[in-house]
């Protein structure tokens, strides 16, 4: 099951550039939450702070508190443990090209020392089913490489790979922006199904996509969280003029 995310006083920098300012936000468990805003507004930095990827950049710095459930991710644990509990899917599908479909999904578990072959088979199948990919690849699991399937399938393979380690939170940074409309629809359907089991945070430039998949939406601008509310409220009657101007295309 997913867990809620509590963010307090979060600030982030790249070198001297202050990219996130005083973010306070409670992301509900087992819901999809969308983050929108113009390029450079800080939304991708924000999701990278949720699994401590931001700090992989040597000039990056973070202050504040991020709690995933009861776990204070900047104080209690190592980044490796965090990234097992918080999966991430990126804009461009990034399957391991030399690995088979099966090995792609199993890679995270193997990296963690998991060797039980029968259990591995079960987890790979379950993960591919959850990612709505099983029926399309079940006959080629070990014959085809992760890079030989279509872009949309590759993205669902990456989701399956993320699900295999059984995370509680799924971060998605523009997961469908490189996909055609049919593959995009499959990813959106998938998000809809997965949120009953995971807490999903999705960064998207596609506002219709945010409106379709997320119950909550946050609008970022210039490193600040301008507004966070029910998605229906944000897209029909936002409280802040800046949100309205952005989503109606009056700036951006």
């Amino acid at each position, binding site marked *: 099951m997913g867990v809620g995310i509590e963010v307090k006083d979060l600030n982030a920098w790249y070198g001297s550039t202050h990219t996130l300012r005083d973010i306070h936000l409670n992301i509900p468990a087992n819901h999809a939450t969308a983050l929108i805003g*113009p390029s450079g507004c800080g939304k991708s930095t924000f999701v990278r702070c949720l699994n401590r990827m931001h700090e992989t950049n040597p000039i990056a710095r973070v202050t504040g508190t991020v709690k995933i459930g009861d776990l204070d991710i900047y104080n209690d644990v190592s980044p490796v443990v965090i990234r097992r509990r918080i999966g991430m899917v990126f804009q461009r599908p990034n399957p391991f090209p030399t690995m088979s479909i099966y090995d792609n999904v199993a890679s995270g578990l193997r990296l963690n020392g998991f060797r039980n072959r029968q259990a591995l088979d079960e987890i790979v199948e379950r993960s591919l089913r959850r990612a709505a990919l099983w029926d399309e690849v079940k006959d080629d699991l070990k014959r085809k490489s992760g890079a030989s399937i279509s872009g949309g399938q590759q993205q669902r393979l990456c989701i399956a790979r993320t699900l295999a380690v059984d995370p509680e939170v799924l971060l998605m940074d523009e997961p469908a922006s490189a996909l055609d409309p049919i593959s995009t629809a499959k990813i959106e359907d998938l998000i809809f199904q997965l949120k009953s089991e995971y807490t999903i945070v999705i960064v998207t430039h596609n*506002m*219709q996509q945010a*409106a379709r998949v997320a119950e909550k939406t946050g609008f970022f601008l210039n490193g600040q969280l301008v507004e966070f509310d029910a998605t229906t409220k*944000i*897209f*029909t*009657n*936002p409280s802040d003029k800046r*949100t*309205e101007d952005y*989503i*109606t*295309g*009056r*700036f*951006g």
Partner: protein
Amino acid sequence: MTRIRFHQNLDDLKEKLLVMAGIAEQAIQRSIEAYRVRDLSICDLVQRSEPAINRQEREIDQMALDLLAMEQPMAIDLRFILAVIKINADIERVGDQAVNIAGRVRDLQAMPPVELPVDIPKLASMSASMVRRALQAFIDADADLAESVLTMDDQVDQMNNAIYRTLSKLIHDEPSQTPQALNVLLIARNLERVGDHATNIAEDVIFWVSGADVRRHWRTGS
């Protein structure tokens, strides 16, 4: 990501709706003038305006539909288009009321003239003023002005009720004047409906501008 063409299209939609509203408003004024001076040629003008109003209603609906489908509007733009679709229907019905009044004037003209103790032009003036104010609120995106239309509706209802009581009594006391009284009763009813359409338009303006749903039947549960 600024959407200049889309916002130009919204301006065009607004302008087209206002052109249609102008025709409907003129039809109401003419129908009352026809009643006042009992002039059938004015009734003809009112009835000739109906096809133009109906054609414009269809064109505005199509424009709104196209914008919804092609532009996927959000927030105030989405509310604007929804408001336009609803206001469009109300304006078309204002035109229908004008045609109905013109029809009643024709019937009255065929009857012996009688002096009825009711002030239809006063009710008409109030209803027309509601329409004008609601449309001004739409032009200026002025929710406060739209709010003032809602209070006028009660006055129109009261005037209509008073006319109803007066004419009911007249029908009872002077049965020979029943045909004329019934026609005037229907004209009063048409004008009261014009006030209702103006109220709907005002409510839609408030929804567009502020996002608030102030529909009267919603508030009162009636």
